[in-house]
């Protein structure tokens, strides 16, 4: 591995110096949200001390500054994911909002009675429930690609599911619970062979992998700012122009209109057609700062470092006798879910917290997946660019301690 300056990266994240119950914080709940570098924290203050104003409205100086900064972020996002056009980047409040937007707008336009939407058994609730709602509304059917015991998509079953009734495929790039890295290129290709568009939930991928929406040829790609070192309350929906143009607006209000008359309203063009109301301006602008931060290290360097760390963590944890991994796919990214045999994940989480180790426990908003594995939940450690082997060693010691207390 080339030089990766972990000490200077850690120094950029002030919260990592926190002590929890007298122990140094070991933050391994990055799948839930990542910590923010000082540059993002500063940018939030700078926004409010220097340019706070509403965007896309006023002719006055500050409004122009805020609008420019907001649009610079759109450009940065567009470059970061290699979109063909900046206006294919819709700023939303997060992945959930992005998926709901597609489910509603695309669903209204293209899904009819008897049609089908395909998702997978490892989806987050936010990539299940919006589709259930639109299917119910349209009289369509939700179909679920099964997974094997390792937590990998059953690609044969998937191929067999594709037919002319299927109007959209929506699956996750990286499973938030299992860490499975899905073969989305193949998923997209097979769907496109039958002219079916694909939405990829990139919430757990964008901060770990180089994403090129044109190379993937993906139709919709959704992700959140707060999981990629940016602020909460902002997210992205990338959509191909050819689809976004044909979709009706999701919400009505200011900014999304060109002309409003009581008889008829003319909608604004892309991307504003899908951005009704005042957005989270501060978060939007500071997401641009977060992308700058990622780029100073480079997403490919981050991916290499994290892959190495994931391997190290998997090996270290596997040396604990009672451990059982949930999600053992060949291709994985950033997430390790496990159970300490016989111990409830909640109990393990409580002990780990006492030792300063922050993990997520529970069903991770993937209840159907927990049912698939017949477990109440898991303990999930999820890594980010600032985690270290020492973090993993402390996790392993804490899990051993929990096992000795609970079993």
């Amino acid at each position, binding site marked *: 591995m080339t030089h990766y300056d972990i000490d200077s990266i850690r120094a950029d994240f002030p919260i990592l110096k926190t002590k929890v119950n007298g122990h140094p914080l070991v933050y391994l709940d990055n799948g839930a949200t990542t910590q923010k570098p000082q540059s993002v924290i500063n940018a939030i203050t700078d926004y409010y001390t220097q340019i706070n104003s509403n965007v896309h409205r006023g002719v006055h100086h500050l409004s122009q500054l805020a609008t420019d900064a907001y649009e610079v972020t759109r450009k940065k996002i567009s470059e970061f994911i290699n979109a063909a056009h900046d206006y294919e980047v819709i700023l939303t409040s997060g992945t959930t909002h992005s998926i709901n937007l597609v489910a509603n707008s695309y669903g209204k336009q293209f899904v009819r009675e008897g049609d089908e939407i395909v998702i997978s058994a490892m989806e987050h609730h936010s990539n299940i429930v919006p589709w259930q709602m639109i299917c119910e509304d349209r009289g369509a059917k939700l179909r679920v690609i099964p997974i094997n015991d390792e937590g990998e998509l059953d690609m044969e079953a998937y191929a067999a599911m594709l037919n002319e009734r299927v109007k959209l495929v929506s699956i996750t790039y990286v499973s938030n619970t299992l860490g499975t890295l899905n073969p989305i290129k193949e998923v997209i290709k097979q769907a496109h062979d039958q002219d079916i568009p694909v939405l990829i939930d990139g919430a757990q991928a964008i901060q770990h992998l180089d994403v090129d929406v044109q190379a993937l040829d993906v139709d919709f790609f959704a992700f959140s700012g707060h999981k990629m070192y940016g602020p909460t309350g902002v997210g992205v929906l990338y959509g191909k122009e050819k689809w976004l143009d044909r979709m009706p607006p999701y919400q009505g209000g200011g900014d999304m209109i060109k002309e409003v008359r009581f008889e008829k309203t003319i909608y604004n063009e892309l991307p504003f057609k899908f951005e009704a109301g005042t957005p989270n301006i501060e978060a939007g602008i500071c997401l641009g700062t977060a992308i700058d931060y990622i780029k100073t290290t480079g997403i490919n360097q981050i991916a290499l470092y994290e892959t190495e760390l994931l391997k190290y963590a998997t090996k270290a944890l596997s040396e604990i006798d009672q451990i059982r991994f949930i999600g053992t796919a060949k291709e994985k990214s950033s997430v390790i879910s496990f159970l300490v045999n016989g111990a409830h994940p909640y109990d393990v989480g*409580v002990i780990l917290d006492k030792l300063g180790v922050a993990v997520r*426990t*529970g069903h991770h908003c993937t209840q159907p997946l927990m049912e698939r594995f017949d477990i109440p939940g898991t303990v999930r450690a999820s890594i980010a660019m600032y985690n270290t082997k020492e973090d993993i060693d402390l996790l392993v010691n804490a899990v051993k301690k929990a096992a000795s207390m609970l079993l």
Partner: protein
Amino acid sequence: MSMTINEIQDELIEDFSFFEDWMAKYEYIIQLGKELPLINEAYKTDDLLIKGCQSRVWLHAQEIEDKIFFTADSDAIITKGLVSLMIKVLSGQRAEDIMSANLYFIDEIGLKEHLSPTRANGLVAMVKQMKLYAVALNAKQ
């Protein structure tokens, strides 16, 4: 004469004051959780299940001579230990005393975080359910 709710709470607070650190405290709670099943298996049915986001609690109530007796269980040991403490305090008391009980001991023994509604371990819902039983039985009397 049996002890009142507050007498039991004060006794628990004193018991816990002997523990030197969190680990000793949790080891005791885990021990309570591991002890005999608190509920008849037949009562571990869905209608007696209180769903927390993370762990689950089953609660059964029975009235014997003006007093309410609770049995309960949980799938998580630490939750079960805490459930067991709640039962020590509230089981065998009169409906009106349960209804008006101020459960200060959890805070005093330093376990407040487990009673936070966001903790989602089913414990808050259980206490609420215990009080609801008491309200219902009190209304019947």
